């Protein structure tokens, strides 16, 4: 075996790089470098421009995404490890726009809190870059590097309030669970690599689908990989870090983690299920079924007894992850079902990003007055700040899935995908989704009734007579997310075709 060293000595041949395909990533990278330069050259004077520069960078990276979408051709580069198809483009657009909204939410929070500003936006851009890469990754090494590129800055952002013990604790818990998940994930990847002899997802599918594949190794590999991403998307029972980290981290970072990093975990899971594990429906379907059902029930039941809006949204996020995992439990039935399942998850991710970011925008705006996220502090919000109360109600009802708001269309697509193969398992899971939507409505409606029905607390140590002043950037974020939430609900036939995507495994190249 040692004689094989000679086979390693081959002339290095640069792969043909499709520069247009990787233009969004390069743009983002360029702006990240520019932010660093601004920090080095302008020092404190740079603080005034960094958030504008970061948001401009995110929007500028949308331009190549749009030109690629206009071009329409599926592209593949780096020997097929990096694929640009309409699925990855839609997800890249979601990540970039979600990142833009997070910058809007962060601007005042970070500037007023006496935190490190420039580094914050560098970390944010780096994490978004990791997500954008993740959407195109069709290879284990690329997926791993993208995951770490997104996670490592996220650990730092969760710990951003250095002197606050709660933020420290949030960061520590996120970090420890995150690296543990990465390690378990890597162990699974090493087993899959061993079974397939290649890190490309298409080759893994070809190798593990046949009868000759070592079943134990493949099964363990799939389980470890899915568990690793289960931590990332905070599926029950791997969600334990989420409520603590969400509560302790700075709220804009929480918004970012709950939407963007969860979506990135799902993107990787989708690529793995629809390409890498495609022939192994017998292994991943039961796993997804159990994870989905447990996440829905676990998340919703624990959300019922929360007294803090951020923790409540964390547990509701666990339940939402369950809804999104559900279609993967039937995806392997047939190609038509897989198509529906993929579009339904992508639709859900896009709508979830809009409505959850919106809800966090309201939480951030209200906390500027109350300095707390307790549900009790929302009492009587409609009396003194009707605009925020209406916005919060829209986002909460969208999360609950009430028509005609966005969340309704998302849940509808999920249930449709679940019952379309007409298998008992799929129908049962569809019923579980419906039951859980009803449970979830209870706790969302509780906040709404606090805001609309009850009077402002008498003994409150904050002003409950004048309207809360919302900074311009937070208002802009509210308008953007609110418009997206309404558009998906009212005009699903118009917006829905954006998320009706197909996934290309790889192209020869």
């Amino acid at each position, binding site marked *: 075996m040692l004689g094989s060293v000679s086979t390693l000595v081959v002339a290095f041949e640069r792969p043909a790089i499709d520069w247009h395909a990787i233009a969004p990533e390069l743009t983002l990278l360029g702006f990240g470098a520019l932010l660093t330069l601004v920090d080095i050259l302008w020092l404190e004077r740079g603080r005034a421009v960094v958030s504008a520069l970061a948001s401009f960078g995110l929007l500028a990276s949308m331009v190549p995404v749009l030109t690629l979408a206009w071009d329409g051709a599926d592209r593949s580069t780096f020997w097929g490890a990096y694929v640009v198809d309409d699925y990855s483009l839609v997800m890249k657009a979601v990540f970039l726009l979600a990142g833009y909204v997070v910058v809007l939410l962060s601007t005042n929070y970070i500037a007023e809190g006496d935190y490190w500003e420039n580094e914050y936006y560098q970390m944010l851009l780096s994490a978004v870059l990791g997500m954008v890469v993740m959407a195109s990754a069709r290879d284990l090494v690329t997926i791993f*590097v993208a995951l770490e590129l997104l996670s*490592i800055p996220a*650990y730092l952002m969760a710990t951003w309030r250095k002197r606050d013990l709660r933020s420290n604790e*949030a960061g520590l818990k996120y970090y420890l669970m995150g*690296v*543990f998940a990465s*390690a378990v994930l890597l162990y699974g990847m*090493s087993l899959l690599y*061993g079974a397939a002899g290649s890190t490309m997802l298409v080759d893994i599918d070809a190798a593990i689908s046949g009868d000759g594949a070592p079943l134990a190794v493949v099964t363990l590999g799939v389980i470890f990989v899915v568990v690793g991403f289960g931590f990332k998307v905070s599926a029950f029972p791997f969600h334990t870090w989420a409520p603590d980290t969400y509560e302790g981290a700075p709220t804009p970072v929480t918004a970012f983690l709950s939407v963007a990093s969860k979506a990135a975990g799902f993107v990787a899971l989708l690529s793995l299920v629809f390409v890498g594990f495609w022939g192994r429906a017998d292994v991943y379907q039961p796993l997804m079924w159990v994870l989905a059902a447990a996440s829905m029930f676990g998340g919703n039941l624990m959300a019922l007894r929360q007294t803090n809006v951020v923790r409540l949204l964390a547990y509701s996020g666990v339940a939402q992850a369950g809804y999104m995992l559900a279609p993967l439990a039937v995806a392997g039935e047939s190609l038509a079902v897989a198509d529906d399942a993929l579009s339904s998850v992508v639709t859900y991710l896009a709508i979830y990003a809009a409505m959850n970011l919106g809800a966090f925008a309201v939480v951030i705006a209200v906390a500027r007055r109350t300095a707390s996220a307790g549900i009790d502090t929302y009492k009587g919000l409609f009396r003194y700040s009707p605009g925020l109360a209406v916005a919060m109600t829209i986002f909460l009802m969208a999360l609950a899935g009430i028509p005609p708001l966005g969340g309704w269309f998302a849940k509808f697509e999920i249930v449709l995908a679940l019952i379309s193969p007409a298998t008992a398992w799929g129908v049962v899971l569809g019923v579980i989704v419906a039951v859980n939507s009803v449970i979830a409505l209870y706790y969302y409606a509780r906040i709404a009734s606090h805001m609309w029905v009850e009077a402002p607390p008498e003994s409150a140590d904050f002003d409950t007579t004048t309207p809360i002043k919302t900074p311009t950037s937070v208002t802009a974020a509210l308008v953007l997310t609110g418009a997206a939430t309404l558009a998906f609900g009212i005009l699903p036939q118009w917006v829905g075709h954006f998320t009706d995507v197909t996934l290309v495994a790889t192209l020869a190249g």
Partner: protein
Amino acid sequence: MILNQFLLLAAVLFCIGVYGVLARRNGIMVLMSVEIILNSVNINLVAFGAFRDHVAGEVFALFVIAVAAAEVGIGLAIVLLIYRNRRSIDLTEADLLKG
């Protein structure tokens, strides 16, 4: 090629690492346990790469080593921060957030 012995070693290391993450209360010890898991991954990757005469395993292991170094750097920074703020890195004492 004696592949099984390497895989067995990696599996044992993996189990030791997982046990350490779950049972240890000291932040540094948990970090070291994660490192043990990552090294078991590296053994797996290199063993499979050599067994299949395929360089991707070794390359993957190099990526894992490099990224793990960055990750542990961040982890030590967070643990140090906690030590500065509360003079202890006992994880069971980090219990401000619950509910």
